[in-house]
């Protein structure tokens, strides 16, 4: 009896699949690839991209707030913030996902995913910001004093814009890194792209197509992002 992989899916009891036939089935099945693509792509857009984009925004804003708090708060409070940030940075994101998921069971898993990714990466980005802020030359601060500029104006117009310039490449790398971490959402049951790919492939014992699609989608999104960051970096460089 000849049977293709797709037909195998139609059998009610998967245990009946002949392992011999699975092994002999073609390495790549275009029909199945086209068939599985829409589901994987939708999961990519609705979960992976969504979590990455909102998570990056949360991380970028919160990271800056953490960096500024550590610099401006009175010493004991600054220590607390720094300790907490270190704690979050030094523990695995998978553990954090599981912990928050069970600690806040009433919350939607996707929201938890966004918050955990955002906060986790904020602690990394705060270090990048801190280095960026420290790289602003002392003379710049002195010029703002000489002009009697307010602290708020100094931070907003001089320090943060100059600090951001040197931080863009690192922040971008963390955004890409977060993007590639999204499959961890699996542990809290969020159907992100890789999970959906697995779910499409498993019943028919076909994995090459679905995981190739998932991998390519990661690449297709990461690469232009990297190019974009590079461009942004150039744009932010001072006109010489």
């Amino acid at each position, binding site marked *: 009896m000849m049977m293709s992989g797709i037909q195998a899916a139609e059998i009610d009891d998967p245990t009946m699949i002949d392992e011999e036939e699975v092994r002999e089935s073609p390495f790549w099945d275009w029909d199945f690839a086209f068939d599985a693509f829409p589901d994987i792509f939708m999961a990519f857009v609705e979960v992976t991209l969504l979590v990455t984009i909102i998570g990056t925004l949360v991380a970028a804003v919160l990271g800056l707030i953490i960096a500024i708090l550590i610099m401006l708060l009175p010493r004991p409070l600054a220590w607390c913030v720094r300790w907490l940030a270190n704690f979050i940075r030094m523990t695995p994101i998978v553990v954090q996902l599981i912990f928050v998921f069970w600690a806040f069971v009433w919350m939607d898993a996707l929201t938890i995913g966004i918050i955990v990714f955002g906060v986790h990466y904020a602690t990394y980005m705060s270090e990048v910001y801190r280095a960026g802020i420290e790289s602003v*030359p002392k003379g*710049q601060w002195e010029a703002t*004093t*000489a*002009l*009697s*500029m307010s602290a708020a104006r100094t931070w907003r117009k001089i320090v943060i*814009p100059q600090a951001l310039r040197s931080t863009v490449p690192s922040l971008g790398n963390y955004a890409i890194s977060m993007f590639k971490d999204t499959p961890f959402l699996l542990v809290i049951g969020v159907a992100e792209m890789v999970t959906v790919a697995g779910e499409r492939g498993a019943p028919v014992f076909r994995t090459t197509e679905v995981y190739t699609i998932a991998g390519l989608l990661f690449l297709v999104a990461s690469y232009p992002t990297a190019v974009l960051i590079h461009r942004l970096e150039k744009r932010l460089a*001072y006109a010489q």
Partner: protein
Amino acid sequence: MPTPNDAVGIRPAEAASSTSPEVPVIEFVDVEKRFGDNIVLKDLNFSVRRGERVTLIGPSGSGKTTILRLVMTLEELTGGYIFVDGEPLTHREKDGRRVAVSPKEQKKLRTRIGMVFQQFNLFPNMTVLENIIEAPIHVLGQSKAEATAKAHSLLEQVGLPDKADQHPLSLSGGQQQRVAIARALAMDPEILLLDEVTSALDPEVVGDVLNILRKVADTTNVTMLIVTHEMSFARDVSHKVMMFDGGRVIEEGAPEKIFSDPSQERTKQFLSAVLRDA
């Protein structure tokens, strides 16, 4: 006119007298500055009259730049008092104790002081125009139109009428320093502090920058406190020269006197060394 030795407690520190010509624009009373155990300035007393241009000379490490930085509140005063227009800049004496003035009081005085730095310290993320109008608009509360018009006329004054929309790093060092002078003047300062403003410049543009400052000296009544190694400039523009060594004033007087007939051996040594280099 109060002398530097007047008792601090009885000095007329009220604003009412601050515009009177008798009150020194800057007065140092028993100023001490130490960095850790290192005493940079000790028991320093001097005053600067309104419109007076004073040049501080002396070997590096003698504390000249520290004096400018103390007036600009870039360094913390560790002892004594500094008065600007008769009002305490950092600390006042109250019930026999040294009490810090409020940030608001300090800011009020500080807006009357401008500084030009050795390294220009222009904001590289802003255009030349933005550098100049930032503080007039957001500190002095000028309208954008007013500040912009003033900025253009200042740029003309410093010989850079067509550079308003450039970014500072696209300009040469000499041009950047001229923008920095325009930025300081845009605040209409009573006091202008010039901290080795030509030391970071190529020799051939030093003259341009100094000529602009000569013009400022000639056409305005701004009080200047100058630290420079350009002795001919010091001779041209200053009313008084103070020779520093080891954190103290060892000699002061009119530039003609100091440069041609110094009374201290140390001043002679210093001047012959500096003038030989020039």
